[in-house]
């Protein structure tokens, strides 16, 4: 009986170690798992720890995607609220952030689409189709230590399509590795590299065309 219990204890230890190793591989700490379990049971204190841990990432990602501070604050907070009300759907072995990131990006993209429709409507009604500028919602104040060059790059980023802008934001402003970007976007590292190539090519094209326009 004693041997059986020891063996059972050893087995449980091994299973536990394997689980820890698996979590470690996915970049999820045991502490975060515990916090998420507590959130699931309705603990607001645990959720407070999660919010405070990720609020800066959430705000800056939203700022990069939508381009102005008020919207970024509003959308990042709304994403946390939605995450809390849907916390039961989270598979905690993947960790909080990649799942939360999906909520945040969907909110930001949906906000951008609405803004585009509203903006297009306004421009069509007032000055006509030729003056449409995709980067209209990108406030230059969002950039630190502004100068003409930085404003130009920021404006060009604002003109990129959603997926291209997203990968630029994650790489350049969030300083994420390809592996982290792939984890957040639920894709492979190869896809990240390819998307980054097309995004940078497009960005370069936009900057060149603007430079050309300035020289004319």
């Amino acid at each position, binding site marked *: 009986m004693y041997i059986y219990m020891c063996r059972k204890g050893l087995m449980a230890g091994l299973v536990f170690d394997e689980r820890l190793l698996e979590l470690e591989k996915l970049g999820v700490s045991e502490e975060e798992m515990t916090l998420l379990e507590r959130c699931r049971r309705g603990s607001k204190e645990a959720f407070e720890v999660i919010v*405070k841990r990720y609020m800066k990432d959430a705000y800056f990602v939203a700022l990069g995607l939508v381009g102005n501070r008020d919207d970024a604050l509003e959308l990042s*907070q709304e994403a946390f609220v939605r995450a809390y009300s849907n916390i039961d759907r989270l598979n905690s072995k993947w960790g909080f952030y990649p799942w939360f990131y999906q909520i945040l990006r969907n909110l930001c993209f949906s906000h951008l689409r609405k803004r585009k429709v509203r903006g297009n409507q306004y421009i069509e009604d007032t000055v006509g189709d030729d003056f449409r500028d995709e980067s209209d919602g990108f406030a230059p104040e969002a*950039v630190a230590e502004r100068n003409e060059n930085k404003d130009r*790059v920021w404006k060009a980023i604002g003109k990129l399509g959603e997926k291209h802008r997203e990968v630029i934001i994650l790489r350049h402003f969030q300083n994420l590795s*390809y592996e982290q970007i792939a984890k957040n976007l639920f894709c492979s590292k190869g896809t990240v590299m390819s998307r980054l190539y097309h995004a940078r090519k497009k960005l*370069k094209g936009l900057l060149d065309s603007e430079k050309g326009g300035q020289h004319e």
Partner: protein
Amino acid sequence: MSCQEYKELMMGYLDSELDEGQRERLEQHLVDCPECYRELEEFRKLKDITDDVSLAEPEDRLWEQYWGSVYNRVERGIGWVLFSAAGILLLIYGGFKWIEEIIRDETVGLLLKAGLLVLIAGAAVLFVSVLRERLYIRKRDRYKDVRR
């Protein structure tokens, strides 16, 4: 490997994300292909100017008040759910009582009572039908998780 594939590898090269083998293959290709080498240099310049841009830090006040705002929203959300649920329950109860009163009222004509009952039956059939259709589609729609 084609030039296009090497061009995608260039991103990993610039961001120090390639393994030894990939890096060596790309470097060899760059020696043989001046076109790709030129493009790499252009991307390097672009990376430098993009890295130079950083987002402005908001005031500390924003971080201090952040959790408070999220908490208030969560609380208000729960409040709204309770308020809406109670409102719906009260409406159903009130409606039921109102209909019961009309049915029991002997001064109300039979035709009106019958019309009311048929109206309720019709609404119930419509509700069940729509609900069943929604559930059926939800169960079988292979694209329900695709973001539109």
